[in-house]
């Protein structure tokens, strides 16, 4: 398949936009059902793109990015599946495009690596965000957001164009690479999963006092119980909130009553429970 510079540029732009859209903006453009026809049109086979999009979408439905967990990347997967389907000139039926979906998987995995890398690097940039906030620098905060979107978009654009020229040969190289260094990527995955604890620890520093420890453990226990039960696991956090709200309202009412009584001289002392 002959690829012109214009086509490569257009693929870059589409991958750039979709790379951003997977987390921000409309959060729907990136779905394969939309992305694949666009890539198909760029490469000159719109109809094939539509069919690949439908087929990939059905696979994708089962793997949504939920609660911070990241499945293999649908955008890179969708783009490359279309590229392979067009270059191999596959038949535009649901069965015909199956081979293209398989060839695209290494790229989907690398798309995910790009996301992991970005999220890890941006964790380091949060110190910068703290500094901008401290200075009241509104533009700085905006620019940090632009920075990540631009970075992520470029990574996706580069990966897509590399895939466009490198084809299935590059796919094999990528697969070998990730096979050999699987421990590094697993390490990043494990570390990424643990970084949120830093955010929790900062929140605890704000709210914690000696008598709060019990509530922390109670919330922890409540969450464990709800998630262990199949029927309630989906609603774990909302159930935690229900119990937490009950305790908080009870405490609020008790404390305000104590304060009122203290005001009327019924209970002595300045102690108001804080």
């Amino acid at each position, binding site marked *: 398949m002959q690829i012109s510079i214009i086509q490569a540029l257009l693929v870059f732009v589409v991958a750039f936009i979709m790379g951003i859209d997977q987390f921000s903006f409309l959060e729907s453009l990136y779905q394969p059902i939309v992305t694949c026809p666009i890539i198909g049109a760029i490469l000159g086979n719109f109809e094939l793109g539509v069919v690949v999009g439908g087929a990939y979408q059905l696979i994708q439905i089962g793997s949504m990015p939920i609660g911070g967990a990241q499945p293999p990347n649908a955008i890179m997967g969708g783009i490359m599946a279309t590229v392979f389907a067009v270059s191999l000139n596959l038949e535009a039926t649901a069965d015909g495009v199956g081979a293209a979906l398989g060839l695209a998987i290494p790229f989907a995995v690398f798309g995910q690596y790009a996301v992991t890398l970005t999220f890890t690097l941006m964790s380091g940039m949060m110190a910068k965000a703290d500094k901008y906030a401290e200075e009241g620098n509104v533009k700085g905060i905006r620019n940090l957001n632009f920075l990540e979107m631009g970075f992520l978009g470029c990574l996706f654009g580069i990966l897509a164009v590399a895939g466009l020229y490198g084809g299935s040969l590059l796919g094999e190289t990528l697969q070998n690479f990730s096979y050999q260094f*699987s421990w590094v990527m697993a390490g990043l995955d494990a570390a990424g999963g643990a970084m949120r*604890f830093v955010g929790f620890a900062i929140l605890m520093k704000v709210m914690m006092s000696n008598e709060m420890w019990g509530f922390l453990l109670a919330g922890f226990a409540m969450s464990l119980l709800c998630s262990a039960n199949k029927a309630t696991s989906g609603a774990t956090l909302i159930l935690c*909130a229900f119990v937490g709200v009950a305790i908080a309202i009870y405490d609020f009412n008790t404390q305000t009553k104590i304060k009122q009584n203290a005001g009327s001289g019924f209970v002595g002392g300045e102690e108001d429970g*804080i």
Partner: protein
Amino acid sequence: MAYNIPEKYQDLTPAPQLDKKTLNKMVWLSCFLQASFNYERMQACGWLWGILPGLQKIHTNKEDLKASMAHNLDFLNTHPFLVTFVMGIVLSLEQNKADTQTIRSVRISAAGPLGGIGDALFWLTLVPITAGLTANMAMQGQIIGAVLFLIIFNAVQFAVRFGLMYWSYGLGTKAVTMLTSNAKEFTRAASILGIFVVGGLIANYGSTSVRLIVGETQINIQSLLDGVLPKLIPLLITLGLYVLIKKGWTPVKCIVLILVVGILGCAFGIWSGNSQAMDADGNTLPGGYTPLVEWYEYPTPEE
């Protein structure tokens, strides 16, 4: 964390109601909630960007704006389509100049549970239904499938975003004036709820576990730990980090430590991690990855 966020704003006179234009602007910006998503604070920086137009209107005092910006960078993770609900509540508190600690506690208490509801509503219900129906049209070569998908999905998305912003802002401003007359008690109650939810988040989002399988009898260390207390490792890491941060460690230092421990640990096959890598035949690797130093045998899954 050199900057200590003050407990109270300097200017305690309630700010006037926000106008429609500002509220709408924040709804549009809320689409970029995850623009600077990262592992440490997740949506924090995108959240701040989105809510800034309101904060700038509310805090005419420069020092107050700084304090408000600083505490609005707390860890935040909620569903992107439901975030305007949290925005409305937080804005009503900011407008009434509630204590910063109250706002922080209320924010995480509202945001956390909404994340779970949103996933269930949108990713597990709306997307499968609309995408499932339209994908079949697409597979027959009809582009109308993609068009329909975009229209339905975005109509729902924006109805939810706008609706929740106005509803929760109105609700919040009504409730807050009542509560702030007992500000101290309210802060305390909000902290209890906040800390309760954080406890829940540790168990719910804490996925860190060990991969070790040792000995002749293939003892699974993680299931031993689960026998002691499920999610013991997430709890211990959080408490450890809390101690470090209280000692004055910066978040960046903590993150570097986690990164080093994470990658070194996986070199020796200690942590569970998913590399998503595949061997030449396209099979995934047993245990998620192959450690650099293989000093124990990971059982191959039974067919």
